[in-house]
């Protein structure tokens, strides 16, 4: 029997899973709607569950800020509301009646996931507006929890469902989550002693950061994506891409656990 090749969603879930350590706490909200839901919620959840099934059994999944280690295998569909009955009635380890402030504010959360409309080359993200703040071309939802994610959490995975020039810009129109302006020294000067974006995950590649220089760099390019198309889709200079590797594929074992145990009914990751 031939195992079907990994989908992009599976590749990203496995890539993320390898970076989560045992006994960490990972925070994800319930992002809704098509690709945004897959990047913002489904891939992070699948990655965290895979890590729990393999090298990180003590990982805590904190979903929507209040449900600890929910029994996601019981779901018929990915929940689409953070505070309604479906998630309320889903069995879990600890259900909070508010955000656990020790986690959100004191710093117990080791990593979180953000989505944004724009990200720039120092890793700032924007979900507030496109264009001038007072007369925006597009007014978006607002900063929400992004300032907290990008400053208080140990590290942040920026999950971008779209990778086009309008999303990857030289300078975001509004900084709602702070990257590395001026590098690590720049962050410290802003009063941000820890945290910040760890990597930026897109349908074309994975970025990480030269933190000292405060600059995003391409860590790996997904199979089938050419350096030329990546440059074309990115609104800032990517430097020399000739030595950038292809995103490493899942092992057969990782893929098997993901398909048989984490998401057997394809609730999280569509085929």
């Amino acid at each position: 029997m031939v195992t079907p090749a990994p989908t992009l969603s599976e590749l990203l879930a496995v890539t993320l899973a390898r970076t989560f350590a045992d006994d960490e706490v990972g925070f994800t909200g319930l992002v809704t709607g098509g690709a945004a839901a897959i990047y913002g919620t489904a891939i992070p959840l699948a990655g965290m569950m895979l890590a729990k099934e393999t090298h990180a059994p003590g990982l805590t999944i904190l979903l929507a800020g209040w449900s600890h280690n929910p029994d996601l295998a019981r779901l018929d569909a990915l929940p689409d509301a953070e505070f309604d009955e479906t998630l309320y009635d889903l069995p879990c380890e600890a259900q909070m009646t508010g955000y656990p402030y020790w986690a959100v504010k004191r710093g117990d959360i080791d990593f979180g996931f953000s989505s944004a409309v724009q990200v720039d080359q120092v890793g700032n993200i924007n979900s507030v507006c496109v264009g001038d703040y007072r007369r925006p071309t597009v007014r978006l939802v607002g900063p929400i929890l992004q300032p907290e994610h990008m400053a208080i959490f140990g590290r942040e995975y920026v999950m971008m469902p779209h990778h086009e020039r309008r999303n990857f810009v030289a300078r975001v129109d509004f900084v709602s989550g702070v990257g590395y302006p001026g590098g690590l020294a720049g962050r410290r000067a802003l009063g941000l002693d820890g945290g910040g974006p760890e990597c930026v995950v897109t349908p074309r590649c994975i970025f990480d950061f030269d933190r000292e220089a405060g600059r995003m760099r391409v860590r790996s390019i997904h199979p089938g994506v050419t350096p030329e198309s990546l440059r074309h889709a990115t609104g800032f200079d990517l430097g020399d891409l000739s030595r950038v590797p292809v995103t490493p594929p899942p092992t057969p074992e990782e893929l098997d656990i993901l398909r048989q145990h984490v998401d057997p009914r394809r609730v999280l990751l569509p085929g």
Partner: protein
Amino acid sequence: MSSPRSKLGSLVDAVGLIPDGTRLALGGFAVYQHPMALVRELVRQGRRDLTVVGHVNGNDVDLLAGAGCLRRVESSYVGLEKYGLALNFRRRVEAGELLMVDYPEVASFDRFRASRDGLTFWPCGYLGGTDILTHNAEIRAFDCPITGRRLHAIPPADPDVVVIHAVAADERGNVVVPPRRLLPQSLDITMAGAADTVIVTVESVLSRGDLRRHSRWVEIPSYRVAMVVLAPWGAHPCPVLGRYRGDDAHFREYVAASSTPDGFAGYLRTYVTGPRDHWGYLDLLGAERLTRLQEIGTW
């Protein structure tokens, strides 16, 4: 023997406590448990120049924005979650007709904690580098007097009037918030501590005896409450946890209508200014539609 004054009033009475220009806080969160019956009455009464100070807002702010009732909004989010962007809000801000003041989410909660705790600011250590600071002169930098660390003082929410929607209260104003609750209901309790004028719309009004039997679930005692308004299904189309689900079909109709100003004017005529009051709104929706939204109803 004398008995304490009843605080029961109508939605019209409640809106009488919210004149033009009021700094108003509305309970609920995103698309959950907003006091929508009160919001619709604000539109019927033609309120203008309101400021909504909130934390995570949704169709509450969007409806008021679309009806032209708002001058200013302070929040971390105005959107409709799975139903999409808040299109009236978006249109008004893009046109420069509505002033938006952005705050982070947890800092927005803290602004209500500051008001509740009688403080003149709340300290915040994670705002450096954000454009929230660029556009908000009311947030002031200061050095922590203990450690010298650079912090920011965020102003308290300080609403003139708070309105929340709860499952039950007695006519004195003792408000039941059952243990079946999540972040939105918990934040309502915080918000109800943050102003001198608190209005509570409720699914049901309890007798004094029933209230005393559920007193362990009273999270807001009567002296905090200025008025109680009976408004069953008063959060519709939002859900009330444990009572009824959100009305997905209505939300989708709302979003479709709000894609143009004319479409939204039609929505307002049909669902807000058309019905004479909240009871007329419920008659328009009909018993079958409402009944189908009911939850199991356990506390």
